[in-house]
C-alpha cells in the first residue's frame, strides 16, 4: 500500500511539485566553489626549484621563505641530503610569477643573523627566522634553470644598481672588509661591495659602491686612501695628532677620498674606473714619485720625511735597489705635487742628521724623529725626477746671496763644516766645506751672510780662532777666546784689515787662514836662514828689546839649510833693513841669577838689532849676538860690571820703565877682571845720559846674601821680571857734562846702590865681625850711605869697607867724621840699636868738620855723645856708674824730662861723667842749685827698728834705672838762676830727704 492509498477521504488531490527542488543549488554552488578553489590552488602553485646548500641549519620545511626585497617569493617545501651527503638539497616552491626570472644568473643565498665587526646584519632573522634571499635575473636573459647552488654569502653588488661602481687597486688590504664605509669629508657615501685578489697583477681589487646622490663627488683625479683605524702622528714641531675619520672607520676600517685643492677639476668618474688606494692621507696627497739615490751610510729609512724649512714635503716610500758593490741605495719617494716646479737639476737633496759636537747640538729634532732629507730647491735647471742625496748639506752655491770666500790653510785644527766665522766675536757666517787638496793643504770654503758682507775687505786676515788662547810671558798673561762655542768647537775669526779700504772682495776670493790671531797679525813676512834649527819651532818668537814682534810661521828644510818664514807685526816693518842683525837667544840659568826670564819661560827666541840700509827680506840668524858698529845710530856706552850674566845682548835698557836702548854685547874687558857691557842708547834718549848717570842691573832675580841683603825693590815687579839695565839720574846741582861715545860707566848691582851712590868713601875697620856689603851707614838712624863692598887687609885682620854716601850724606865726608860699627845691643837697662837686629848692624856716623876726605878710620867703639843739638845739655859727675846707662830717663817729680845721652870716664879718670840732655821745654826746671841723684832700681831700706821701706821712682827706673833731680824754691829776694849749658853737677847716689819736698813754681812753656 502506498502512502496515497492509505490516506482516506482526501479532499483534494495534491500533486507533488515535480522537478528538482531548489535545494540542489546548494551543493551545486558548493561544488562550483570547490572547483574554483581547486583551480585556484592549481594555478597558484608555484615553480619548484631545488637549491643546494651547504647546510640546512635553520631551514624549516614549510616555514623558511625565500624573499626578495623583503617580500616572500617562495617557501621551502622539502629538505633532503644530497647524494654524496656533502650538501643539502632544499626544494622550494617559488611564486609563479618568478618563474621567468629563475635563470642561471639568479642568485640565492642564505641570510641569517650576522654580528661582526663589519656590521650587524640580519637581526630580523632572529625573530622571523632565517630566510633565503634571492637576487633574480631582472633582464631574464639567462637560461631557465631549476637547480641552483646557493652562494655562501651575499653576492657583490650588481652593476646595474644605480650608483657609482668603481674599483681600487692596492697592495695590502689593511683592515678593510666588505661593507667598510667609503667616506668623503667623513660622510659615508658608499661602501665596499667586494674584495678580490687579482693574481696576475698581484694586487687586491676592492670594489666600491658609491650611492647615486654622492656619485658626482668622485672625480677622475680623486685620490682614495685607507682611513681605517686611528692615525697617530707626531712631530716635535706639530705636536701629536690623533686622527680618525669616523667611528665606523675606526672599528671597521674605511676608505676616504678627496680631491686636491690645487689640481684642476676633472670629470666625474664613471663606472668601472680604477683608482689606487693609498695607505694614508699623507701618501695620498703626495702624488708625485721621484727616485733618490742615497749614499751608503745616509741613515735614511723607509718613511723618512723630506722636509724643507720644517715642512714635510714628502717621504720615502720604499727602497727599490740596494747595491752593495756600488754602495748606493736607490729609494723611491713621493713628493707633494706642489713642489714639482722645484724639482730641477739645480736642486739639491741632502741628509739632515743630528749633529752632536762641542759646538752644540744641531738638528735636535732629528734626534727624535730620525734623520730626514732636506731640499735646497731651485727653479733653474731642467726638471728631473731622479736625484742624488748628499750625506750632508752641500756648500752654498755662489749665487746664494752673501759672500763666498776660499781660505787656504795648512792645518785646519778643529774646524769642521758649519763651524762659525766670527767678526768681533759675533757670528757672521759659517764654513761650508773643507777640502783637502794636499798633505798639508786645505781649502776652507766659508760663507759670510749678506748683511755682514761689508766687514770683509781684501786686506782682512783670517785666523783659526778655536779654543783658548793663552799667551803671554811673565809680564802679560792673557786668555782669549772668541766665544764659548769657538772654545769648544773652533771657529774662524777675521779682522778689518787696513783701515779705509773700499775694496770689497768678490765671491771666490782667496785668503790665507793663519793658525792664530798673533800670527795673523804678523803680516810682514821675510825669510831667515839658519844653520842649526834645533831649538826653533813655528812658535819661536822674534823679539826686539824684550817685545814680541813676530813669530816663525814656517820652517822649510832645504838642502841642509833651514829657512824660516817669519812674520812680524806691521808696525815693526822697519827692522827689515839690510844691516839688521838677527841672532838666536837661549835662556841662561845660573846659580848667581837668572837672566832673561823671557827666554826661560817663553823658550828660545830670535832677537834683532835694527840696522840701516835698504829694505831686505832675507837675513841670516847667528848663534851669538853680533858686534855692533860704533857708527850705528844711538849713543854707545860701555858699562863695567863684575858679573856678565846679568844681561844678554838684546836686553833692553829702560829708564823709568821706558825702553831707551839695548845691550849690544857682553864680553870680558881687556884686563879680564871685569865684564864690559856695550850698550846703545837710542838717539831720542841721548839727552838722558849725563856723567852722573848711574846704571844698575834691573834684571831678574838675584840670589845672594842673607838677612841683611834682602832687597825690596821700589820699582815694580815688572822691572824685576823684565830685567835689563836701568839707569838713574841723581839730583845734583853740579853741572852736567856731555857724555862721549864709548864712555865707561859702572854697572851697579841694584837700584839701591845706584841711588845711594853719592860719593865713594873708604873706611878701615879693625874689627871685621859683622861687616858685610850693603850695610847701611846711618846718622842718627837715617841712612846716608851703603857699603858697596869689603876688601880684607892683606896683612893684619882688618878690612876696608868701600861705601857710598848718598847725596845727602856727601857733606859728612869730612876729615872729622867718625865712623864706627854699631852692633845691636839688647840689655836690661837699655837696648840700643834695636833696628840693627834685623839689619845686622850698621855703621854709625858722627859728622865732623874739616876738609873733605874720603878715607876714614873707624872707631872701635861708638863715641860718646855729650851734647845734643837741642835741649839743655848738662854733665853730672858721679863716683861710679852704677846702673846708669845711656838712654836712662831724667826725671823731675817722676816725670821724664830728659835722658842720659852719654857716659864716660872723666878726663882724669877719677870720676864718671854722665851727660844728660833735658828737653827744651823742661830746661827751665834746672837751676843752679838743683840736685841730681841716681834713682835706679829699688831702694830697699831695712832696719830692725825702722822696718822695711821700698822706694822707687818709676817702673822705668825700676827696670832700667834713671836720674832724678829737684830744684829748691827760690827765696823772695833771690832770683831763679837757670843752669847753663854744659854745667857740671854732682850726681848723688841716693836722694836726700829734703829734696823731694821742694816745690818751686816754675813757669813752663806750652
Amino acid at each position: 500500500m502506498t502512502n496515497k492509498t492509505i490516506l482516506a477521504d482526501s479532499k483534494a488531490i495534491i500533486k507533488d511539485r515535480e522537478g528538482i527542488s531548489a535545494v540542489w543549488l546548494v551543493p551545486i554552488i558548493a561544488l562550483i566553489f570547490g572547483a574554483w578553489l581547486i583551480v585556484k590552488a592549481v594555478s597558484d602553485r608555484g615553480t619548484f626549484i631545488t637549491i643546494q646548500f651547504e647546510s640546512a641549519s635553520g631551514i624549516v620545511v614549510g616555514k623558511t621563505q625565500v624573499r626578495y626585497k623583503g617580500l616572500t617569493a617562495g617557501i621551502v617545501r622539502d629538505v633532503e641530503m644530497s647524494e654524496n651527503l656533502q650538501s643539502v638539497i632544499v626544494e622550494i616552491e617559488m611564486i609563479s610569477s618568478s618563474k621567468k626570472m629563475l635563470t642561471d644568473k639568479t642568485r640565492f643565498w642564505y641570510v641569517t643573523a650576522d654580528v661582526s665587526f663589519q656590521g650587524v646584519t640580519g637581526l630580523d632573522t632572529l625573530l622571523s627566522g632565517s630566510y633565503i634571499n634571492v637576487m633574480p635575473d631582472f633582464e631574464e636573459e639567462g637560461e631557465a634553470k631549476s637547480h641552483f647552488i646557493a652562494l655562501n654569502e651575499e653576492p657583490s653588488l650588481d652593476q646595474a644598481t644605480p650608483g657609482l661602481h668603481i674599483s681600487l687597486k692596492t697592495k695590502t688590504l689593511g683592515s678593510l672588509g666588505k661593507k667598510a664605509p667609503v667616506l668623503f669629508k667623513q660622510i659615508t657615501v658608499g661602501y665596499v661591495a667586494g674584495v678580490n685578489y687579482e693574481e696576475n697583477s698581484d694586487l687586491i681589487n676592492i670594489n666600491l659602491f658609491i650611492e647615486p646622490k654622492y656619485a658626482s663627488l668622485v672625480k677622475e683625479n680623486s685620490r682614495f686612501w685607507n682611513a681605517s683605524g686611528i692615525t697617530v702622528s707626531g712631530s716635535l714641531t706639530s705636536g701629536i695628532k690623533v686622527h680618525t675619520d669616523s667611528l665606523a672607520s675606526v672599528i671597521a676600517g674605511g676608505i676616504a677620498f678627496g680631491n686636491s685643492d690645487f689640481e684642476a677639476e676633472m670629470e666625474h668618474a664613471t663606472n668601472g674606473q680604477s683608482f689606487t688606494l693609498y695607505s694614508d692621507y699623507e701618501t695620498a696627497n703626495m702624488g708625485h714619485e721621484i727616485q733618490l739615490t742615497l749614499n751608503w751610510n745616509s741613515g735614511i729609512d723607509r718613511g723618512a720625511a723630506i722636509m724643507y724649512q720644517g715642512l714635510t714635503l714628502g717621504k720615502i716610500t720604499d727602497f727599490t735597489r740596494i747595491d752593495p758593490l756600488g754602495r748606493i741605495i736607490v729609494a723611491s719617494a713621493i713628493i707633494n705635487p706642489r713642489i714639482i716646479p722645484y724639482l730641477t737639476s739645480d736642486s739639491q737633496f741632502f741628509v739632515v742628521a743630528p749633529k752632536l759636537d762641542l759646538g752644540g747640538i744641531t738638528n735636535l729634532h732629528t734626534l727624535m724623529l730620525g734623520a730626514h732629507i732636506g731640499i735646497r730647491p731651485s727653479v733653474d735647471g731642467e726638471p728631473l725626477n731622479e736625484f742624488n742625496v748628499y750625506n750632508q748639506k752641500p756648500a752654498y752655491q755662489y749665487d746664494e746671496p752673501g759672500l763666498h770666500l776660499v781660505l787656504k790653510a795648512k792645518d785646519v785644527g778643529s774646524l769642521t763644516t758649519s763651524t762659525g766665522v766670527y767678526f768681533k766675536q759675533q757670528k757672521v757666517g759659517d764654513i761650508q766645506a773643507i777640502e783637502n787638496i794636499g798633505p798639508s793643504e786645505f781649502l776652507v770654503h766659508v760663507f759670510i751672510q749678506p748683511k755682514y758682507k761689508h766687514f770683509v775687505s781684501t786686506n782682512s786676515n783670517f785666523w783659526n780662532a778655536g779654543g783658548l788662547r793663552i799667551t803671554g810671558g811673565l809680564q802679560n798673561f792673557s786668555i782669549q777666546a772668541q766665544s764659548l762655542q769657538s772654545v769648544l768647537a773652533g771657529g774662524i775669526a777675521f779682522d778689518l784689515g787696513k783701515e779705509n779700504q773700499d775694496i770689497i772682495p768678490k765671491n771666490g776670493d782667496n785668503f790665507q787662514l793663519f793658525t792664530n790671531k798673533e800670527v795673523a797679525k804678523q803680516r810682514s813676512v821675510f825669510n831667515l836662514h839658519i844653520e842649526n834649527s834645533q831649538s826653533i819651532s813655528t812658535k819661536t818668537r822674534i823679539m826686539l828689546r824684550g817685545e814680541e814682534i813676530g813669530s816663525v810661521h814656517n820652517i822649510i828644510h832645504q838642502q841642509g839649510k833651514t829657512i824660516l818664514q817669519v812674520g812680524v807685526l806691521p808696525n815693526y816693518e822697519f827692522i827689515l833693513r839690510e844691516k839688521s842683525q838677527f841672532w838666536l837667544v837661549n835662556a841662561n840659568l845660573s846659580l848667581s841669577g837668572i837672566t832673561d826670564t823671557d827666554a826661560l819661560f817663553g823658550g828660545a827666541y830670535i832677537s834683532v838689532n835694527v840696522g840701516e840700509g835698504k829694505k831686505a827680506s832675507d837675513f841670516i840668524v847667528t848663534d851669538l849676538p853680533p858686534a855692533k858698529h860704533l857708527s850705528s845710530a844711538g849713543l854707545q856706552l860701555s858699562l863695567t860690571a863684575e858679573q856678565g850674566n846679568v844681561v844678554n845682548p838684546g836686553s833692553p835698557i829702560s829708564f823709568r820703565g821706558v825702553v831707551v836702548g839695548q845691550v849690544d854685547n857682553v864680553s870680558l874687558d881687556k884686563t879680564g877682571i871685569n865684564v864690559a857691557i856695550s850698550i846703545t842708547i837710542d838717539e831720542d834718549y841721548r839727552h838722558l845720559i849725563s856723567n852722573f848717570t848711574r846704571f844698575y842691573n834691573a834684571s831678574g832675580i838675584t840670589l845672594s846674601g842673607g838677612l841683611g841683603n834682602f832687597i825690596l825693590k821700589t820699582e815694580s815687579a815688572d822691572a824685576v821680571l823684565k830685567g835689563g839695565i836701568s839707569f838713574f839720574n841723581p839730583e845734583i846741582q853740579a853741572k852736567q857734562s856731555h857724555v862721549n861715545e864709548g864712555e865707561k860707566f859702572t854697572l851697579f848691582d841694584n837700584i839701591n846702590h845706584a841711588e845711594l851712590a853719592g860719593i865713594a868713601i873708604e873706611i878701615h875697620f879693625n874689627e871685621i865681625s859683622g861687616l858685610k856689603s850693603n850695610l847701611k851707614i846711618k846718622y842718627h838712624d837715617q841712612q846716608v850711605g851703603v857699603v858697596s863692598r869689603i876688601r880684607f887687609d892683606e896683612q893684619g885682620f882688618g878690612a876696608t869697607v868701600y861705601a857710598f854716601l848718598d847725596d845727602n850724606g856727601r857733606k859728612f865726608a869730612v876729615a872729622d867724621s867718625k865712623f864706627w860699627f854699631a852692633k845691636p845691643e839688647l840689655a836690661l837697662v837699655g837696648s840700643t840699636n834695636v833696628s840693627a837686629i834685623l839689619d845686622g848692624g850698621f855703621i854709625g856716623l858722627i859728622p865732623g868738620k874739616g876738609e873733605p876726605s874720603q878715607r876714614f878710620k873707624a872707631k872701635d867703639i861708638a863715641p860718646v855723645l855729650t851734647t845734643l843739638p837741642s835741649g839743655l845739655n848738662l854733665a853730672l859727675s858721679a863716683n861710679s856708674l852704677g846702673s846708669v846707662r845711656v838712654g836712662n830717663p831724667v826725671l823731675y817729680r817722676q816725670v821724664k824730662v830728659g835722658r842720659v845721652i852719654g857716659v864716660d870716664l872723666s878726663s882724669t879718670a877719677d870720676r864718671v861723667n854722665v851727660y844728660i840732655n833735658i828737653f827744651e821745654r823742661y830746661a827751665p826746671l834746672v837751676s843752679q842749685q838743683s840736685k841730681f841723684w841716681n834713682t835706679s832700681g829699688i831702694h830697699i831700706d831695712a832696719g830692725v827698728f825702722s822696718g822695711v821701706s821700698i822706694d822707687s821712682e818709676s817702673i822705668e827706673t825700676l827696670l832700667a834705672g834713671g836720674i832724678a833731680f829737684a830744684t829748691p824754691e827760690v827765696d823772695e829776694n833771690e832770683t831763679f838762676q837757670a843752669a847753663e849749658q854744659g854745667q857740671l853737677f854732682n850726681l848723688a847716689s841716693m836722694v836726700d830727704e829734703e829734696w823731694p819736698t821742694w816745690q818751686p813754681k816754675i813757669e813752663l812753656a806750652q
Partner: protein
Amino acid sequence: MSNKALSAGLGNCPQCHKLNVMHTEKQACSRCKTLFFARKPKSIEYTLAWTIAALVMFIPANIYPMMVFYTLGKPDASTILEGIAIFIQLGMLPVAIIIFIASFVVPLGKIIGLFTLMYSSKKPTKLTLKQQGKLYHIVEFLGPWSMLDVFVVTVMAAVVNLGFLTSIEVASGITYFTLMVVFTIFAAESFDPRLLWDNHQKHNHNTVTPYKEYKNTDDKCHDK
C-alpha cells in the same frame, strides 16, 4: 502488519505531537492547526543535496588552514590534520584524539552516516531497523556539536590577541568547516527517518515485527 503509524493511517504532528488521522499527505493538525506532512516531502532529495554540499565543503575545510598563529609576527597556519599532527608531535595524544574525533571523524562520519541512511531508505540493507534508527539519532545529535570546534577557533581568535607577540587569526578553513557542519545539520534535519520504516516494511514486509498491535482505542474522532 507494520507498526508504522502511517500504516494505520495516522500521522504525528511535529509540533504538538498529536497523532492525527491522516487523510491527506499534508494536513493541518487537529490540535495545533500546523500544516504537516505525513512524510517529509522530497526528504531524500534534500538530504542528498545537503550532504553533497557538506561533502564538497569538507574538502577545503581540511585543506585550508583553520587558523593562523602569529608568533612574533611569524604566521603559522595549520589545517585540522596538521594541527592534529602537531599535537601528536607535542605528545598531547588525548588532545589530538579529541580533535581528531571532533573535527575529522565526526563530520566525516556524519556525512557517511547520512549517505548510509539515504541508502537505507531506498535499498535493502543489512542494518536492522534498530541500527538505522540509532544511526539517525547519533547523526542528528552530534551534528550541532561539531560547531564546538568552530566556537573554539573563534574564541581563541578573539581571546589570544597579544599583539605582536602572539595572535590568532581565523583562516579560510574555518569557513568551510562551518558550512560543512551547517550543511550536515540541514541534511540531518531534512531526513525523515520514517522513510526508513517505510523502506524496511517494503523490503521486509514478510517480517512481522513482534510489536504490539495497537488498536485505536479512541473511537471517537476528536478532530471534528
